[in-house]
């Protein structure tokens, strides 16, 4: 009884995958997160730099870092999670790494990511 395992598992995951705007490492994104308080539902925005994207299928996730009142805050989001309402890209970043963990060691201006400039 041989089945095409990868195909079968993909077709299970298909239903749960969501379409978001494309973003890359180093981009500044706004993540609109649904928060349920009792019966009310509201939306909170988490804005920061995308530090890492990893995984595939329903397990794909990305990490966003921001500086909140002088304290670095990182949050990991499963990209296909239903709690994510939408994602907006506010700034395209120019980076040469696939994981920006070096930002943790930096403060001030050095912790910035250069903006991507498009040539004519």
């Amino acid at each position, binding site marked *: *009884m*041989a*089945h095409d*395992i990868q195909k*079968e598992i993909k077709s*299970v*995951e298909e239903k*749960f995958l969501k379409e978001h705007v494309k973003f890359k490492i180093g981009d500044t994104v706004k993540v609109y997160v649904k928060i349920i308080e009792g019966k009310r539902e509201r939306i909170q925005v988490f804005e920061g730099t995308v530090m890492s994207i990893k995984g595939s299928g*329903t397990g794909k996730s990305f990490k966003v870092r921001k500086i909140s009142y002088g304290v670095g805050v990182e949050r990991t989001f499963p990209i296909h999670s*239903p709690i994510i309402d939408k994602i907006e890209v506010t700034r395209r970043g120019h980076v040469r790494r696939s994981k920006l963990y070096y930002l943790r060691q930096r403060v001030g201006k050095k912790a910035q990511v250069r903006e991507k400039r498009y040539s004519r």
Partner: protein
Amino acid sequence: MSIGIFGTKLGMTQVFGEEGNAIPVTVVKTEPNQVVNLRTKEKNGYSSVLLGVGQKKKTRINKPLQGQYELVNKESGKDVAVKQKLKEFRVDDVSAYELGGFVNIDIFEAGELIDVIGTSKGKGFQGAMKRHGFAGGPGGHGSQFHRAPGAVGQCAWPSKIFKGKKMPGKMGNDRVTVKNLKVVAVDVENNRILVKGAVPGPKNGTLFLMKKK
């Protein structure tokens, strides 16, 4: 002691629940299981349903079993092909099952708790620490006793090692039952079921999905 169905483990993934929570699931593929025989209290002293899946050449089974298939075909008037795998499921009442009919994945529904039986992955020859969870000795500080099982018995009396003493040896490849796994979703169309958590065995391993009584 309840009805079940054959399944094949495909692997694990995660899906999202209604509240946005991620649920780890195992995908199990099934196929319609044919009722190869019915055993009743009057005839056999107990009642059960014999289910089978897969294909096998008729010449590959022995004569007594061939005879049983012939009897079943005569009785049901259907052409029940020789099955590769057979399993008997004890049930209280066989009247719900028809000889030569099929048992499908729709006997389960989402939210139900089921038992899953499989054969665990073979681990080969393993020491007492991995196989039986012995504590072992310290790693350093001059200790020369690391992963050995330690003393295995007494002295002049009883002058032997008791049978069943936990020792190193072949591990895994055992029949394992995992109880109370939640059914996350049943896909009747594709003959697939999503079970929360892990189930024993390798990918493509045979499982029995058992309904709880």
